[in-house]
């Protein structure tokens, strides 16, 4: 089985050639001594090097944690690769963005209105959470096309707040 693994932005083409055995693009074969621990943690010994890492997913995105560093992880086989490549083509010309709530909280103020033109980094609303007022900023320049929440409304993490563009 052939895979493309992207970790921390670095891409690796790897082939699973046997139990816990990997072949890299250069043809080198490598066995790994891998055992699961608890809570999605694994202990790996590669050669003599010892690693403990954790895997988790959040909102469908995969991550690997190593010594408290969280690294984005993407593992695709040949089929996945084709599909995601096609998606990528369509995404090359982004025209807008959904702004989601970064955490649960209360919408204390909305600073923009529908139709308004905003700059990248401009505060669009104020979210109150954990006794702090947090400004939510626009990820890009554009026009506010839709506001899905109102003031004093409680929102959950990742709730859709408004759309730019």
């Amino acid at each position, binding site marked *: 089985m052939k895979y493309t693994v992207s970790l921390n932005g670095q891409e690796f083409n790897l082939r699973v050639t046997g139990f816990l055995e990997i072949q890299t693009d250069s043809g080198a074969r490598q066995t790994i001594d891998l055992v699961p621990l608890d809570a*999605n943690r694994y202990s790996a010994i*590669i050669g003599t090097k010892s690693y403990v890492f954790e895997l*988790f*997913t959040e909102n469908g995105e995969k991550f*690997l944690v*190593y010594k408290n560093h969280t*690294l984005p992880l993407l593992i695709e086989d040949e089929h996945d690769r084709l599909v995601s490549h096609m998606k990528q083509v369509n995404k090359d010309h982004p025209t807008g963005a959904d702004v989601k709530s970064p955490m649960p909280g209360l919408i204390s103020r909305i600073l923009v209105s529908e139709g308004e033109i905003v700059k990248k980094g401009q505060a669009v609303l104020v979210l109150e959470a*954990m006794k*702090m007022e947090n400004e939510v900023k626009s990820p890009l320049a554009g026009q506010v096309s839709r506001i899905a929440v109102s003031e004093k409304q409680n929102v959950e*993490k990742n709730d859709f707040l408004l759309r730019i563009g």
Partner: protein
Amino acid sequence: MIRKIKKILVANRGEIAVRIIRTCKELGIETVAVFSETDRTALHVRMADEAVALGGIKSAESYLSSEKLLAAAKRTNADAIHPGYGFLSENATFAEKVQNAGLVFIGPDPESIRLMGDKTTARKLLSGSRVPLAPGTTDSVSDVNEAKKIAAGIGFPVLVKASAGGGGKGMRIVHDPADFEQAMTASQNEAQNAFGDSRVYIEKYLEGPRHIEFQILADSHGEVVHLFERECSIQRRHQKVVEEAPSSVLTPALREEMGLAATEVARSCKYKGAGTVEFLLDRHNRFYFLEMNTRLQVEHPVTELITGLDLVREQIRIAEGEPLGFSQSDLKPYGHAIECRVYAEDPMNQFLPDTGKVHLHRIPSGPGIRVDSGIVDGMEVSVHFDPMISKLITWDVNRERAIARMRRALEEYSVSGVQTTLPFCQFVMNHPAFISGKFDTHFISDFFRPDLLMLSDSALISSLATGALNAVHWYERESDALKVQSRSTPEFSSAGVWKIRRK
């Protein structure tokens, strides 16, 4: 008059409730925990001898309800209340109610809290003394135009600060007069939310200051000592993340001078118990009184580690009416201590609070390590309370070694389920500015970028990629225990979170 305390109700939650219960156990004092609806299985409830449900989910319905707290104390026959920090710890009215109910309030008298709690009153009180104050108003301001004029008079940048405030809440820096109005409104709103008091005042903003604070202890017999300083300059959102003692910039002469000023502040309000006098230290080693916190401080462990004292024990003894039993000349700092606060926050994303279930909480151990935590496996970090879940403190004979030990401890510390400030603390411990001791409260804006938290060792990344692929290919879904879980929901999402099937 000595009044022995037999049972203490701890009017708090999380790590500080656990911290207080630990000392009570060592003193043979019984403890009563209180808990909100979501805290039924929290560590402080498990550890206390008794536990009383307050009901409610939000602070206002639970840990901020003086009626419920006093009823719980009455029901359990507690003879004292320890407020911890935050919540009602600096609320003079609460302290008064506790005393009126015939209970011991473990803290200063309500009058001292009142004097120091209102930052403008404190400034007024000290304006005649030898304690240096930063330029600014000694009264609160409510009219935005008048405030703007005062700010212009002091000269921008200025700080808008909550009169009833503390801990950076309600504080705004204003560089540009054009931003003043919005900043003042935000400050007033936050102050109203956090303290139920929207009054603010204006103070000169010092460029590149260090935040240095002195721990003081004062008994009811007139003895006041300081336990040296804590350096608290590494802050995000005006809240401390890393603290240490001693500070790497204080000379013995400056330490003595500032210590003297700190005890003078305590004497000025007839202080009793453990308190902290905060100063700003500018680039020319001039210091200015900032505020006095009339309670135990989050970062008190670094002082405990360099003095050998248990500050909660001292608080209780003082509240019982005992004399301190030692004076300033008996005290000498021993070694160096550093504290890293573990917040459930994402340092990759503006330190925004993260919530969710902590699947796994494994603390470091071994020589010179202390962990004060309120978290256990499976516990929920909710939006209702402060995101600080733990404190990691290291001690060693000198600063260099205490830093090396902290690096080791941070690497050992494992929290799964929520993002934390652990990687940020690793960044700090490895940064040349921190290591050299040459840094100020702008450390984050001067040196930190989220991408600096990423790994750059490609050989390491390559090995981890191999590990990840094998883990997913061979072990995923093999059994319930091994399946790859979502971080926010412990149950396995069957909708193909991982697309790869076992061979």
